[in-house]
């Protein structure tokens, strides 16, 4: 039997994190996605044990402060795109508000560390979300363009092609053929 799964990554991650924290008997408070505050004082040894444990689940504790900011930017963008947040302001303003930092600082930092711009990252995430909607939800490109606030289908189609090198319909075709083979 074959099952097609669709993940809510936020939920999955939080569930894993919660389980591990409880396994290590750590008292905590979640301050944001991918950010927790340990409420008690914990020894270095115990912390190392915890770090190693969560590492097995693909979770890293970010120590570099720059990387912490980058991760936050990414989290905000992913949350914004995948949860279809209704944002009235420009993304740059929204990001600055959310992270309480100057946008040009964020933008420079992002490019420096990730070799790509925030704008590109947003486009990438939108296209990823489009891919999911195309294959899992089987929405039409028109519906998706409307959902993701694109000015036109052509615009989304063009952005998709520019980002992936493939047209949306070719993408759909390839995924469908892959499923047939498996």
């Amino acid at each position, binding site marked *: 039997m074959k099952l097609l799964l669709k*993940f809510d*990554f936020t939920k999955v*991650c939080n569930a894993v994190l919660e389980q591990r924290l409880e396994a290590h008997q750590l008292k905590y408070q979640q301050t944001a996605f991918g950010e927790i505050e340990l409420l008690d004082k914990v020894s270095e040894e115990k912390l190392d044990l915890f770090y190693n444990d969560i*590492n097995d689940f*693909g979770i*890293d504790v970010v120590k570099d402060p720059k990387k912490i900011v980058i991760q936050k930017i*990414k989290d905000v963008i*992913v949350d914004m795109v995948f949860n279809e947040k209704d944002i009235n302001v420009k993304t740059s303003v929204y990001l600055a508000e959310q992270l309480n930092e100057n946008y040009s600082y964020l933008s420079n930092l992002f490019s420096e560390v*990730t*070799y*790509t711009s925030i704008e590109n*990252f947003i486009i*990438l*995430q939108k296209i*990823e979300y489009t*891919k*999911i909607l195309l*294959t899992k939800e089987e929405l039409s490109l028109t519906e998706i363009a409307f959902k993701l606030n694109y000015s036109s289908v052509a615009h989304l189609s063009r952005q998709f092609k520019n980002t*992936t*090198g*493939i047209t949306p319909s*070719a*993408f759909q*075709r*390839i*995924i469908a*053929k*892959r499923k047939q*083979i498996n």
Partner: protein
Amino acid sequence: MNSDYINLALADDDEDDRLFFTEAFEELKVKSKVSLFKDGIELMDYLDDSNNAIPNLLFLDLNMPKKSGLECLKEIKASQRFKDMAIAIYSTSASEEDIENTFVIGANVYIKKPNDFEKLKKVLSEVVTTNWQYHTSGLNKENFLLRL
């Protein structure tokens, strides 16, 4: 993922292409470790040895003596061990149908070898960063398709 460099592999029978490839990564800012293979057999021998680390990203030429890129691709896709390894086809032009077919079989990226070194650098950098995004941002690898 914890390592600071990205582990890359290239299987290409063409010496010049291997040269361009390594030189391009030398000039790119991305920290990388590149393993080179002259043909499909050499590549598969390396991959099948469990002592060797599995590359994050494999660049595969389609036209190789002894074992073609397509054969390698099929073998790799048949094994669960390599499910986290992204595969980029690195080849001269092919027909639309052939390109689509490599994606269907399981390639993530199709790169048409550029005829300009700067373009090559740009393309390789894009592949690496996109691959990086898929690893770090929890994106669905199933949907990782890129054509350059």
